[in-house]
């Protein structure tokens, strides 16, 4: 794959528990800047648990080691991880009534950049990014995810990705619930982030996002493990054959 120093994010032998149940059973990844990894697998295989646990969700217990830009971030809190350059696009973003998209984004940007972002600069940047994602400017004044459609929520996640420009983004089923037009916009956003050297891990159930985003590496994830890794052709093979043919090989790669 890549040379050691080109890796921006890696995890080694990550295990994840929800209460007493082990849902991720030893996963290792190494992602270079601008590199797109797709993790594909059936529902309930533990993909979302992996993404949430990597970001530090308190409901999960994680063992293993996570490195970001050469720094061990395993024990950091979610906000510390975000400030170090990690990002998670949520499958089901929660609503926070009373907090506008703009004020939330400005607070997040201030936290991640470690300095107050001047209002004018912020507005300009926000307007440009929203335009890229074909979002109505009035959107910035709405309350965060409150009464948003599925497509609006996903666009907002991508807007945050582009504004916060992390080193590594985990995208959890960002393609689900989108019509074809929205899917194209979201895919364009993901490609733009990759061009800006963000390392990407796309967690997805379907091939269809990969028609618009070309992954460098595809991992097949079944029952808490990566059972096979390969190039983009692996995604096409999954599309035609499903996951069943991989199930008997359940084991570590």
């Amino acid at each position: 794959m890549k040379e050691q120093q080109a890796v921006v994010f890696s995890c080694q032998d990550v295990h994840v528990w929800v209460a007493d149940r082990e849902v991720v059973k030893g996963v290792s990844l190494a992602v270079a800047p601008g590199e797109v990894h797709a993790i594909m697998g059936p529902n309930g295989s533990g993909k979302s648990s992996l993404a949430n646990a990597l970001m530090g969700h308190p409901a999960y217990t994680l063992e293993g080691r996570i490195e970001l830009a050469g720094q061990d971030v395993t024990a950091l809190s979610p906000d510390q991880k975000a400030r170090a350059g990690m990002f998670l696009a949520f499958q089901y973003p929660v609503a926070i009534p009373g907090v506008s998209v703009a004020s939330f984004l400005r607070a997040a940007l201030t936290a991640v950049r470690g300095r107050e972002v001047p209002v004018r600069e912020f507005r300009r940047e926000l307007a440009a990014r929203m335009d890229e994602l074909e979002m109505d400017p009035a959107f910035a004044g709405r309350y965060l995810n409150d009464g948003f459609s599925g497509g609006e929520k996903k666009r907002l996640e991508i807007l945050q990705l582009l504004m916060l420009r992390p080193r590594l983004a985990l995208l959890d089923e960002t393609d689900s619930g989108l019509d074809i037009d929205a899917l194209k916009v979201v895919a364009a956003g993901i490609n733009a982030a990759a061009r800006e050297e963000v390392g990407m891990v796309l967690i997805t159930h379907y091939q269809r996002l990969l028609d618009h985003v070309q992954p460098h590496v595809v991992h097949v994830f079944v029952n808490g493990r990566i059972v096979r890794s390969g190039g983009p052709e692996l995604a096409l093979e999954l599309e035609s054959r499903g996951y069943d043919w991989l199930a008997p090989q359940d084991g570590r790669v």
Partner: protein
Amino acid sequence: MASHPQLADIGSDYAQRYGFRDPEQYFLKAPKGLSHEVVEMISRLKGEPEWMRTFRHRALDTFLARPLPSWGNTELLSQIDFDQITYFVRATERQGESWDDVPADIKRTFDRLGIPEAERKFLAGVSAQYESEVVYHSVKEELTRQGVIFLDMDSGLREHEALVRQYFATVIPAEDNKFAALNTAVWSGGSFVYVPPGVEVAIPLQAYFRINAERMGQFERTLIVADEGAKVHYIEGCTAPVYSTHSLHSAVVELIARRGARIRYTTIQNWATNIYNLVTKRAVAYEDAVVEWVDGNIGSRLTMKYPSILLKGERAHGEVLSIAFAGPGQHQDAGAKAIHLAPNTSSKITSKSISRDTGRATYRGMVKVRHGAHGSRTAVQCDALLIGEKARTDTYPTMEIAEDDVRIEHEARVSRLGDEQLFYLRSRGISEDQARLMIVNGFIEPFVKELPMEYAVELNRLIALEMEGSVG
């Protein structure tokens, strides 16, 4: 939020900012305890007309005859020792008309609370009450020229006796409840506001209430009359030093909105957590009048307060928008009442409460639609936010509807400040403290946006203080 420049100086707490106390060097202080002698003394000192003196004595009899309420927080109520309270304190010999007239130590208190500055910046009139009486009072000349009366209640009675007598205790009779009777017996201070027909008071009038002495009882009495087509916004704020003993604040506020008038009454209650705040507030709205209670309860040990609106004229509209913040050991028992007495009247009650740690918030509300009030509409919405496992909230909504063609909406929601919301914000780099504050501020946003800018900033700052150390 951290990005709010006005909030940058967060870090002081109640004790430093509001909880300081002055030495008790008073001009005059009644002996503690409640009796006809004390009532007589108050009335004589104020040189009141006979009818008011008689009124007070009768009210005291009512107070003594009435049992404590058998509902609400009866345990805390029963701890009030009425014999240990001082019912009247005259802090200074005369009222100031400029801040220079106010005794230096009292002026320093109000300086620390930012009142003179607020007056200069954005108020049409100010009244500052220290213990039992108003020590400073001013109103913009322009308002006086328009015939607007804004006085402390004692002066109001002296200078406009006929007007006061016409309305005093007509909305809340002394017999209404035990604490209304107590207030009527020993009332002192508060505001008297009269706005003549068609006059609009564009910027707010403010009253500020300060209790300084220990085991003190403050019983201000406020009466606001907006004559036909008049418009007024009145704001009150309150603080007190922190003592280990309890003090009592028991106000009576009566609003009268004549035909087509509009009154908004905003309260930011931030008493120290040793204060019992037992207040009766009620408004009458005549034909096409609008009355709005905007009621924020942050402080006090126990608050029991249910701003009410009697919708007496056709198409009258009433709103109660309230938030309550119950921190550790506090009980905010608050709510609203809307009584529809005329056809096509409407009311809207929005109650938001936050309970943190051992804090307890109760919503107690009543909506009545009486016979003949056909075509009326009412919407009640109660949202409670719980922070921590021990936090508690209860809702007691009552509805009595005597007509068929009315529209009734009721919504109640309880949520817990959730891990998922926190995780979402934290995954964007926002610290846990700031994330909690954002969620809470978002929750009260519908309330805050109804406040004038300066109060919105102040309220956000208070909430930030209340939320400090709420983690873990």
